[in-house]
């Protein structure tokens, strides 16, 4: 494992799961599965002394380094404690680490592979949070990979496991399988047609959580929603994966498709106008917040997948979603930026890329 990562380099690209491909990728951004695991011979994080946290981090690191599979050979292992706030924020924006671990204290780390297909957080709410992310709706492959990583780690780490309650976790809401499968969906048509409430209500009855992502409570939304299983105990991994992947996600995808078709049929001109306006704002604004950016990028993404506009490529839009966030922008600029400056640089970055130019010529 490489005991470092080049954060400037990282900011220039997006992980493979952001590439906008895979099944149903016009609506499904990504599939993510995480497993919560704890070492059997340590207290949970809340009752850990500094020394315990350090021992856990060192133990996990040494055991990972002892693994010979190619999974680990090329992986980055980053100690989060000495990292600057911007670098930690960068990892949050890339979804390699959670906001919680970024903002907590003490010894903690993350291991991830060069393509950012998986990450293992050490000393988050649980000792280990193993997650795999893939582009589009891809439950089967995502599970196979996370399961394999779990198997490998289990060979060298003793997990806290109870015959009756399964994998033991700090919070009883994760006990049992410790599994959370999340599908991130882009649902602008359901938002425009004001049907999200209905979707929320219908999902509550079947042990699934639907959560809005980005800009909730603010004026702008990016129309992204995350669907995940609510329970972890008493259902097998296969059942939980099927619930989200075979039952719920396809149903929401179908609702969204119907809403898109209805919009095309009844409000094509209005929709086209809105998409073009979004493009106009992002191509000409001189300063812009990340929330407003998200809102307009969402509209453009909708316009592309509905065939209303041909340019830019959806890959460019996905990249812009990532790189217009604060830490990325600051990394790309090579220095810390205040809010006003960020808004100006973000607008410049958007203009530059929507005109079809690349990073190398942006300044």
């Amino acid at each position: 494992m490489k005991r470092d990562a080049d954060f400037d380099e990282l900011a220039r690209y997006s992980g493979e799961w952001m590439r906008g491909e895979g099944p149903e990728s016009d609506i499904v951004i990504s599939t993510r599965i995480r497993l919560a695991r704890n070492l059997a011979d340590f207290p949970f994080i809340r009752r850990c002394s500094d020394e315990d946290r350090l021992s856990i981090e060192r133990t996990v690191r040494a055991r990972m380094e002892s693994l010979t599979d190619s999974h680990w050979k090329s992986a980055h292992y980053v100690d989060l404690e000495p990292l600057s706030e911007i670098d930690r924020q960068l990892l949050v924006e890339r979804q390699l680490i959670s906001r919680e671990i970024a903002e907590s204290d003490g010894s903690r780390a993350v291991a991830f592979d060069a393509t950012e297909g998986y990450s293992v957080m050490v000393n988050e709410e649980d000792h280990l949070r193993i997650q795999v992310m893939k582009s589009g709706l891809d439950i089967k492959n995502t599970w196979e990979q996370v399961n394999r990583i779990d198997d490998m780690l289990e060979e060298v780490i003793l997990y806290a496991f109870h015959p009756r309650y399964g994998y033991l976790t700090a919070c009883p809401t994760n006990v049992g399988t410790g599994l959370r499968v999340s599908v991130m969906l882009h649902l602008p048509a359901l938002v425009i047609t004001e049907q999200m409430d209905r979707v929320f209500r219908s999902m509550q009855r079947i042990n699934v959580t639907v959560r809005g992502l980005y800009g909730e409570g603010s004026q702008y939304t990016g129309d992204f929603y995350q669907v995940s299983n609510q329970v972890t105990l008493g259902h097998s991994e296969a059942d939980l994966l099927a619930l989200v992947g075979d039952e719920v996600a396809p149903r929401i995808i179908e609702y969204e498709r119907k809403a898109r078709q209805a919009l095309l049929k009844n409000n094509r001109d209005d929709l086209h106008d809105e998409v073009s306006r979004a493009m106009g704002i992002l191509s000409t604004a001189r300063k812009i917040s990340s929330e407003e950016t998200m809102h307009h990028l969402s509209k453009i993404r909708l316009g592309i997948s509905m065939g209303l506009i041909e340019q830019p490529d959806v890959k460019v839009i996905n990249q812009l979603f990532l790189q217009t966030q604060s830490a990325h922008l600051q990394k790309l600029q090579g220095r810390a930026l205040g809010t006003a400056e960020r808004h100006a640089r973000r607008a410049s970055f958007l203009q530059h890329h929507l005109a079809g130019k690349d990073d190398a010529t942006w300044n």
Partner: protein
Amino acid sequence: MKCQFCEKPATFHITELTEPVGPQVMHLCEEHAKGFLNKEASPPMTAIASALAKQLGQSGDVLEELDQKECPVCGISFFEFRNSGRLGCPYDYTHFESDLRPLLVNVHDKTEHVGKKPTRSAGTADSLAKMIGLRREMEEAIEREDYERASEIRDEIKAMEDPIAPPSTPSDTQS
């Protein structure tokens, strides 16, 4: 009426419509209500809060007694768990088993794990609990500056450590 989480007057009365248990009423002070409402985006905490609120419906005496119950291994009290929603060590699932069960039913609707199991047995629960206990004892010894005892305990822990552990590399011993 007092807040369900502290001594302040309850000024917020929140009715949660949760399935399958039905409506649950919570009485909270402004501070806890804010915390509760802000956490709504995160479903697990909502589930925990409402399940715990249900337990809080128990008579004061029973609850007070339960709150004082402590895990002999990690030392966490049920009160601390109730406040933070986080347990202190794996042994809590054994020590607080009967107290946690209603919560598990409320959150998961089930109390029995189905699915993947580790292929290796993780030793007996007792020996693992002992190790966690030793770590705590070591911490306490360091705190009262009894370094001799702390070092004895450290050796004891080392001797008990997982035999599959790879030998520690020189860089591991530096801080």
